[in-house]
Every structure is written in C-alpha cells, then in structure tokens.
C-alpha cells in the first residue's frame, strides 16, 4: 500500500500532470492561434463479463485455501485516455484443512486507469482499483462467524481487443492486496467479453 500511495503522490505532484494542465488554459492570444486540438474519441460505456481464476496468492493464504474459477462483471466508462470503472467479482475458496471453513467472496471495487492505444483495435489499460473484499464463511463449521470484509487495493493491466464496433475481448492481470491484519494478496487472471455503446448524454452530464 505504501508503494501505491507514493505513486499517487508522485503523480499528484508531477509538474507534467497532463490532466491538470487543461485547467490552466488561459491563453487568449489571438495573433498566434493555438493549434486545433485533435478530435476526441467518443465517450463509450462498456459492460463486461468474464471468467476469473486465481493466478497466484501469497503463501500465507495458499496454506489455508484454494480456489477455482470465479465470475467478474462490471462497467467501464471510456473517456479516452482516461477510463473509469466499477465492478464486482465472485469467487469461492475451499479450506484445505477440516478446521478451516470454506468461504465465498464478493469483491466490489471502483477504479480508474489510463488507456494506451496501439491501434484501432488494440488498447492497453493500466490502472488501479480500491474495493471491499467481503467474505462469507461456512456457518456450519464455525457457528456465529458469518462475515468479514476488508479494504483492497488492486493494480491491474488489461489488454482490450475489439472484434467489432461494439464487441471486444479482454484479458486482465490484477493483484489485489487485501489489507487484513495479516496481509495477503490474490492474483487474478480474467478473460472476458464486453459490449460498448456510446455513452448516453445523461451519463456524461451526470459525471460532468
């Protein structure tokens, strides 16, 4: 988490913080006209669903639980080069020992990222999410202990490949750091499909 905080601060303090410079555009020079800005890609709203598997965990978690395939879904708002997102991920974990209960998890998160476009059909998303990792335990094994939840930070990298104007495939690698007293990490690999449509005006007006 310290690394993530330092990264955020470095970006915030960077004199080349690209987004903020657009606020400071007070150039009223009419003699030397500023060059016209390139046309902005349209804002897109994309809904996605995918299958997610645990690509790796820290050793302390691996000693107690194992996981199969999970489901991930959510929505992205693509305001190139910025991307905002929200979503959730469902997984089940099985205890490796009799004394350790199974649990199911819902990982709800919001995040933002940066889009690096390589071509019309290929984009790389780099970003981070903050979320809540909510665990529901097998009540039969340990009566009265039902739920735990904890804050997570998740950096990710995602490849996005358009196969038509609306449909695209994506592959994502993410590492969720779960900030329990004894920290543990979960690496996720997700393959999914998304459907994009032009962001409705009301959504853009709401965000603006």
């Amino acid at each position, binding site marked *: *988490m*310290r690394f993530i*905080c*330092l990264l*955020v*601060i470095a970006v*915030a*303090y960077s004199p080349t913080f690209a*987004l*903020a410079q*657009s*606020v*400071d555009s*007070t150039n009223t020079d009419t003699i030397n006209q500023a060059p016209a800005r390139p046309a902005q890609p349209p804002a897109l709203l994309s809904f996605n669903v995918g299958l997610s598997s645990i690509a790796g965990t820290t050793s*302390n*978690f691996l000693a*107690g*639980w194992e996981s199969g395939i999970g489901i991930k879904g959510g929505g992205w708002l693509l305001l190139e080069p910025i991307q905002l997102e929200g979503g959730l991920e469902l997984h089940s*974990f099985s205890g490796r020992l009799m*004394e*350790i*209960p199974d*649990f199911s998890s819902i990982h709800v998160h919001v995040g933002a990222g940066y889009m690096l476009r390589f071509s019309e059909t290929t984009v790389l998303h780099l970003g981070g999410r*903050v979320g*809540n990792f909510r*665990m529901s*335990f097998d009540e039969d094994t*340990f009566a009265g*202990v039902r739920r*735990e*939840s*904890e*804050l997570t930070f998740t950096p990710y990298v995602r490849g996005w490949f358009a196969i038509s104007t609306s449909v695209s495939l994506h592959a994502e690698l993410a590492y969720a750091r*779960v*900030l*329990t*007293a*004894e920290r*543990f990490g979960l690496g996720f690999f997700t393959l999914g499909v998304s459907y994009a449509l032009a962001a409705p005006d009301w959504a853009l*007006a*709401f*965000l*603006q």
Partner: protein
Amino acid sequence: MRWPLPIGLLLFYSDRVGFLLLILFLLSSGTAYAQNPSVRSPWTVTYSDKDLAQAGVTRLSDLFLLIDNSAAYSVDGYTWYAALGQLSPSSENGWLLVIDGVPQNFGTFGLQNINQAPFHITDVAHITIIRVPTLVQGTFAKAGTIHIRTKNPPSGIAFKGSAAAGNEINDPGPFRFIDSTQVNIDRVGPPLYTALSLGIRKGSLKASFASDEHHATDIMMIRRVQKLHLDTRRPQLRLRAPRVSATFKALGGTHRFIRSRSRLEDLRFFEPLGLEIPNTSVHDHISGSGTIGDSTRSFSYRASYDRVHLGYRLSRTDIDFDWLQERYALHASQHMHWGSWQNETGITLRSRRSHTSSILLYDTLFETEGYTSWHWHASASSYHQIAGFFTLTNNEFGYKALASGAQSLSPTTVLHYTFSHERTAFEAMNSLWFWARNGYTFLLEQGADFILPLRFSHPETTTLDIALSVRPSKGLGFTFGLFERRFRGVTVPQYTFVYNPSSDGFTPATTVVSGLAGRVIGYEATLHARPFAWMSHRLSYTASFPSSPDVAFVSLWHQHPRYQTTLTTRLTLPSRLQAFVRWHYTGSNRWLSYQSADRATTGRFATDRPAYLLLDLGLHKSLWGPRMQASLVLRNALDAPYRPHPAGAALHATLFAQVSLDIAAVRW
C-alpha cells in the same frame, strides 16, 4: 529550547526525507495569482462547505485534523478532546461551540463531544474556527471557538440526504480461524443524514435527522468493553439526532427558532473509574434568537434552554451517572455603528440547575455577565478592539478583558495581536469535582479513590498572541506568531492508573490539585503558496513549551505533543474533481499517569507516545450539476499505528466514502 522540527524529522524519518524535500522544493516553485494583504486574523480560519468536502471531513470531529495547534486525541476514535491554541491546561474541550449563532454545550463535567451535534457535516454552510480568546455572540470564548452555520434552505421544497462509511484495515479476515486472538475492527459509521426543507421569501422551515454509529472494538478496548457490553452485536456507540429549525424575517432582522435532540448511546472512558462506562447522553435544546434594526443600530436577543441528561445504558452493570442538568440562558445586546466605530453592549443571564438523587448542598449555579466592546476600524487594513466583562456567579465576582487588532505596517505586512485576561469563579467551570464537593455521590458509590482539595482556587488566565503576516508577492503568504499563556489557580485531577487484570482496565487513584500555576510559550509559522492556478500548498508548524514550579502542571502539558506540523496540498482537476494530500506530523507526548500500568503490562499502556507521521489522501467530485457530491478519503494512508492515548484505540488506515444529495423538488 529544543532544535526545531526539521532536524528531528530528518533523523527520525530518514526514509521519507526525499519526499519532504520534494514537497519543500515544490513550495518554492514560484507564484501566480494576486491575493491582497488581509487584515483577517491569522488565528481565524473559515471553511466553506466545499472546503470541508474537499478536505475529506466526514464527521465534525474531523475538523480537529484541519486545525493547527489543536493537540487533539481520542480514546475510542469517536469522542475527541482538543485544546485549541493551547488555551486550556487540559484537553477538556473548553472551547466554545456556537451553532447558528447560539452557544451550545453537549458536554457534561467539562467534556464535550462535537460529534453529538444534531446535524451532519454535509449540512454545514461554513465553520469558523478561532484559536485565540474572543468575543462571540456576547460570550467570552476563553479557549477558542468553533462557530458552525448550517445551510439555509433554498427557495421551494428541497430534500437533502447524505451517507458515509469507513472501512478500517487490519481486520483478521479469514485468518481469525487460524489465530482466534485477532480482533475484528471493520467499519466506521455509517453517519447518515436526511433533511426536508421549505423555503419561502420571508423565511424557511427545515426538519432533519442525523444518525451515526461507531464500533468500539479496538484490541486496546475490547476486553474492557466486552465485560460491560450486553448486546450480542459488537459494542457500538450510536447517535440519533432529530432537529427542526425555522427562520423568518421581520422588524428589519432575521429570527430563528431551533428545536433539537441528540441521543448518544456511549461508552465513555471515564478516567476517575479507569474504564469505559456505558451511558446514554441526551441533549435537548430549544432556542430562539434574532436581530432587530439596521446597519447603524440593532438589537440582538437570544433565549435558550438546554437539558443534558447523563443516564443509564443497558449493560452488564448497573452503573448510572444519574445526572441531569437544565441550562437556561437569556441574552440581549445592542450594536451601534457610526463612522469607523462600533460598539456592542450586552448582558447575559445563565442558570444551571442540577438534578440527581444525591443531595446537593445547592443545585443551581446562577451567573450574570455584562460586557461592552469597542471596535475601531482605523483603515481598510487596520482595526482595534477592546472589550470588558464582569461576571457574578453565585455571589462570586469575576472579570474578563480582551484587546485585539491588526495594524498594517506596509502594503504587504500586517501585525496582529490578541491579549486577554480572565478571572472567574471556580463554580463557572461546572466541573465534576465541584459537584463532587457539592454532594454528588456517584464517585463514592462506585468506590472511586479520590481526594479533593480543601478549597478550589479561582482560575485566572492571561494570554498573549502576536503574529506578523507578510504577503511578499502574488500567491505567497507567510505568517509567524508567538504566543504565551499564563495560568493561575488551575484545578486539575492527578491520576495514577494501576492496571486491573480482572477488568483489563485500571484502578485509578485521583488527587485533585488546585491552585496550580504555570506558563506555556510557543511559536507558530504558516506558509501559503499557490504556484499554479490548480495547486495550492499550506505548511504550518507549531511548537509549545510549558514551564511551571508545579510538577502536576508540567506533567499535564506533557500530554500535548510539543511539535506539530502539517502540509496540505490541494489540487483542482478538470471536470470538478478536487484532490488533496495532507501530511501531518505530531510530536511525541507523555502520559505520566499511566506509568504504573506501563510497568505492570511491560509496555502495553506505554507512557511515552511516539511521534507520528500521518498521510491523508482524498478525492472529491461534484456530480449531476450541483446536486451530488462524492468523496473518497484514505486517512492514515501509511498505516502508522497512530495511538495518541496510552489506553486508546489505534487509528489505522481507513477508507471513507461519502455521498451527499441536494435536490430541489419544487422551486418558486
């Protein structure tokens, strides 16, 4: 005098020096925007609703994060104690709380919980914090002021709602099945608020309801608390607070009526008994206030009734404070304005009547206070004010004097000063020890070990604050100030907390000492810079040094950190997105009363609290026009094990999310 902070920082946090240097470099990176030299006092800060939202304030007590030199601490993370400007000898919350022009006190026995106010931070229009003695609403605020104005309803019918929640890290998670000693920490809040209002041309009506929860589950407290707590759910503090306010314009002025109730189910750490006491604190308030007149001559009035009840909360014990106090106040004042002169003269009558099953020697404190204040606006950048008060508290005479002002020395330099002197009757403090001497038997019934002095001295305080504000260029400002406080006739409890294994709390021995004297001197420096239109910095540094022949006085001040510094950077980004980064360094402090418990538990209740470097990060976004505000705040992002009190909770990194909605359903 010790070496200043930067060297201490360099030695202690050598791995963070690079970032501090980077920050200081950015601070020196130039200026951009015009700011006129301000005659405004450097000890007065006003935060608008936008400032509060953008600064990541989710509860009223978060204000103490923003106030320089506040020496704030908490035991449970919900009730905060603060000494604004080092103006009170103990962090007993002696500052004056004014809400919509009416002084209010939610506290009992000198301890006031600002979170008990019956509204949410998102319904605050602005807050003015004054860190020096001042005259506010006809009251001499000897220990500073927090003046809150709630939002006026808009014209038409409007609805407001807000919700926030915090998730504190370091929960056990799935590992609680491997290590059952790990304790749940989980969420903070949620504070919820809803209000419905009607605004017409000549007035308005607003009804609101605020609620909040706080889990008292930190490992430092949970064993103490679980022995008392009855509910199967985790020990919680719960607030429920409805409020109705009405305003109307008449007779050339504005008049306001307020009715509110604030009910807090509390687990208050009560030092004379050395553990948390389940209690229900109910504060009922009714007031009417207003002004009549014009700009040259006006008349202000205020009548208020407060009923404060500290009573039983269902628990495994039968401890009941059995304390009810009714507080009446009547105030009238005349304001005159001619040329560059202003005069305010007024009188306040206060009555505090206590009810308890104990037989009190006398149950009512009656206070009369008269005052006059003269204000001379010498020029656009200079003013001077003097004020004098006399008070009569149950036949004990007291007096107060105040002088303050600002004098422009050059177009870019202003000298500010504030001087005050106060001598009052001890009864005016309304303290627990006064009532214990007066017949309140709660402490005796609970078997508390305490000794009272033969007599209580009249407290006498003299303060002096001087500051020089300089604006050498656009977008850059610097203020340097010195302060001194002299205290005489101070009455404080000296605690010795002995660890009690059976309750996991303490068995305190209390000796109340009166007639102490001492002095606190210190200095403050503040630097404002705005290198770009979208970026501003504020760096503040305070240092204070107590001295006294009385060991009890000095050991009390050692509970305040000697050095504090805060660096806040605010960023305005596109699409109405704001961000802030706040570094806060709070120096080490010492709680000598816990020495015995420290030794007995080999450091679990450590007497010496270390210095902490805290980092808060926040994002704030306006959505849906002006109707919706959303904030995400990560407090203590470096997860420093911040525990300013030896027996208190550690405040780990916590992520807060807050959303507020303002909808005008019908406009006219």
